């Protein structure tokens, strides 16, 4: 029996559902370069900012009904 089998099961139990240890893609333009994961996070932040601007404040609907 593999002496590490017990350890491997334990590691697998807590392994990430999405493994991000592989190579990242990179956006390259002249001297500019940025990893795709960084770009994804920046785009998500911008989307979140836009949503925060236009989404109604919680409780506003309640107040309007009053």
């Amino acid at each position: 029996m593999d002496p590490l089998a017990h350890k491997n099961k334990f590691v697998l139990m807590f392994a990430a559902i999405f493994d991000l240890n592989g190579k990242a893609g990179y956006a390259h333009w002249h001297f500019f370069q940025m990893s795709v994961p960084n770009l994804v996070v920046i785009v998500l932040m911008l989307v979140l900012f836009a949503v925060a601007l236009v989404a109604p404040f919680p409780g506003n609907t309640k107040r309007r009904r009053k």
Partner: protein
Amino acid sequence: MTYRQRTKAINDAAREYRGPYRHYDIVKEATIAIGVVALLAVVLSILFSSPDEKPATVQSWSRAMPASFVATAVSELDGSSGTAGYGPPYNNASTGQHIAFIHLQQWFGVAHPINTSQDYVIAPLRALNTDTTLQHALNTYTSASAKQQMAWDNAYATAVGKAPHYADQAESREEQKSNTAAVLRISGANMGPLPVMMGRLLAFAQAGGLDGVLLANKQYYATDYTKTLMFLADGDYLPDLAQNDHLLGTQWGMMNETGSFPGQGWLWLYTFWYQIKPFSTSANADVLVMAVMGLLSVLFVAVPFLPGVRDLPRKIPIYRLIWREHYAQLQS
């Protein structure tokens, strides 16, 4: 009306708020925010975990690139390595980086002394005191003139530079063994005691002993990795690993992370300067970038006092979009 009169009128009008007030529970808001962030942290760590890179050690370096390892050790011995010529805080070999009359490195002095030939080669080998052949070789080397030492160093370094797979990382145990054997075969009368010294140092490093020696210090817990890191940085192994993961300074590495994990995106401006001239070609790049970022930080803090810049929120009224219901009520 002048600019000053106009802004004074706006400020005076806003001095006393006469609009409606709304109850705001900051404790409730903070509790919700902390709860959401904590939940996000747990969910994201279950989904993505964290980077799991094997540590880069002197042992892994000496096994993967034995020829590069001994070549670097020789450069530490003869004082031609990056660390040996770095200057403060490690030694006085140079004045270090400066900007105009500001010599920060020099002012703070040698706070973390590293004597490369002693710390990386001679002292670790002296510790192997049961090996009489090695101790004899060491005595021969240390008692020789500086000119003779340099001649031995150069002859050995030239031979190592021609070793097969000098710049390649071994990918299997067999490759490691054959590359190590190629280094151990290097010999010649013009190299003096260098083949014995470097052979023993290589074996010591491959067994993990050199990592332990470089970490040893007066503290109970060994947490100072400076010597190990500087030694690794002088060789080709660590820069190769960094290049593969886009972590070099020339690759915007400051904002990257290993694997496919997002990195420190907020450092984009800091690392940006290193990509353009004059920073990318300057020997004082670090201190120049620090100065530029310091200046920009001061300007950022001074935004409320900068005419034009401080008026941007008024000219681009994003706040009206956020508080649109309030302004709609005011209009109606």
